[in-house]
């Protein structure tokens, strides 16, 4: 059992989200940095989709009513056990009964993941424990919340310390695929997209990461009929400023999507602070075809 002593700026329970409810308008959701959550789970011997705490900008203080194993990944929050600095992250840490874990504010990145061996056993809604405030599913943790620990283990923890990649000194590189609506934009816009830096704006959250930079000019003026969309999609509203969809994205979007980020880059952008420059590296799409043309040719 885990007791919430202090909540930090914003802490929610997340797993890898819920698949199959798009027709209701409910997005997959789940951890904003999926690799961060999965690593924390692996380090304590959990199933990779076990539920853990997602902590925005530190401040979470939890008490282990019963003893347990914990790992902290993602944003490097200096962490204390009963007031003693831990000295390292990205590894399993034994917490005796009654002990307290404190995450202070990280100097870089945004979100830390705190996995407890067994996983957090909160109520599942539509198949997942992920909190999705934009859908009205669940809520952020509050002071005094008591959260049960489950049994979502897959084996003993076998890694003592995972390596940590250094945060980029300059712009963060976001890899992805052009399209599906890259043909709605001018050649100059597409060139700008991959050559000029874009800056993460303060209005970034779990729904989307807003960017500012060279406005992306469209060639097509008509409205786009709303299309389904995914985490990592880069939509461009009429003002030309791209927005990268995050975990709690809307399931459909009426603005053209110029590119879709790879999963690791969608994870990376969710850790970028306001002011962080990003640069896009986009490959051509693998599939772009129209069916039915072969039948027309056959008739001639």
């Amino acid at each position, binding site marked *: 059992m885990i007791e919430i002593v202090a909540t930090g700026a914003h802490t929610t329970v997340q797993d890898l989200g819920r*698949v*199959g409810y*798009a*027709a*209701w*308008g*409910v997005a997959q959701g789940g951890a904003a940095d999926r690799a961060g959550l999965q690593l924390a789970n692996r380090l304590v011997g959990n199933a990779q989709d076990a539920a853990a705490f997602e902590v925005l900008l530190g401040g979470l203080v939890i008490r282990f009513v019963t003893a347990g194993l914990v790992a902290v990944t993602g944003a490097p929050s200096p962490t204390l056990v009963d007031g003693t600095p831990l000295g390292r992250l990205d590894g399993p840490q034994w917490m005796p009964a009654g002990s307290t874990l404190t995450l202070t504010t990280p100097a870089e990145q945004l979100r830390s993941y705190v996995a407890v061996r067994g996983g957090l056993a909160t109520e599942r*809604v539509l198949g997942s424990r992920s909190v999705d405030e*934009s*859908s*009205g*599913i669940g809520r952020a943790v509050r002071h005094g919340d008591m959260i049960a620990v489950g049994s979502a283990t897959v084996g003993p923890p076998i890694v003592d310390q995972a390596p940590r990649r250094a945060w980029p000194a300059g712009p963060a590189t976001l890899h*992805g*695929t052009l*399209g*599906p609506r890259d043909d709605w934009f001018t050649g100059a816009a597409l060139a700008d997209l991959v050559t000029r830096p874009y800056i993460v704006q303060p*209005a970034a959250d779990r*729904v989307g990461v807003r960017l500012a930079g060279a406005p992306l000019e469209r060639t097509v003026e008509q*409205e786009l*009929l*709303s*299309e*389904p*969309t*995914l985490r*990592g*999609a880069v939509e461009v*509203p*009429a*003002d030309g400023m791209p927005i990268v969809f995050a975990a709690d994205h*809307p*399931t*459909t*979007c*009426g*603005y053209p*999507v110029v590119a*879709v*980020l*790879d*999963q690791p880059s969608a994870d990376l952008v969710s850790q970028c602070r306001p002011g962080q420059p990003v640069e896009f590296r986009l490959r051509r*799409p*693998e*599939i*772009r*075809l*129209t*069916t*039915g043309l072969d039948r027309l040719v056959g008739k001639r």
Partner: protein
Amino acid sequence: MNIRSYGTDALLVELSTAAEAGAVRARLDEQPPVGMIETMPGLRTVLVRFDPRAVDAPRLARDLAAVEIAPQCEDGAPRGGEPTSVRVVYSGPDLDDVAAHAGLSADEVVTAHQRPTYRVALIGMAPGFYFLAGGDSRLQPPRRRSPRQDVPRGAVGLAGAFTGIYPKRGPGGWQLVGHVLDELWHPTRLPAALLTPGAAVKLTTA
């Protein structure tokens, strides 16, 4: 149909009508091709998510191209049954802009907006966000240039050929003409949506 890569793990299938898109999506859900994870509906499109370890994009694209397009209903026709009445207060901040775009007075916009019987075309963009099709062809303003970050719950908006109803407070780019009085979306109960895709809807002045 058009089939385009949507990142590395999904393909976007584009059809000619909403009915075709619905039929293709239903067929894929009944008989999923190898490697398919789920389908997601759009107004004329279907997004097919797949596991790249189970199937490669060209193979899946071939499987999708082979799906028979057999729409069961006329595009735009509501299903049978009495239309559900939804009460609207027409006091939205963009009502005058919509009137100017249509070349009508605000009162004429309200009258024109209430005349048709709408069909629920889609629940998307947000949980419980209703897309209503079948509106007056004069009332088709573009989206706002930059979306609002804070549209109130129950707001009624127009964008292109659709009327939308916002289920909760949140961001939105549609032109707001009013708000509904009835609660159409309950996130914690199933079915959460009072209106289902295909249902007929009449909008009335509160």
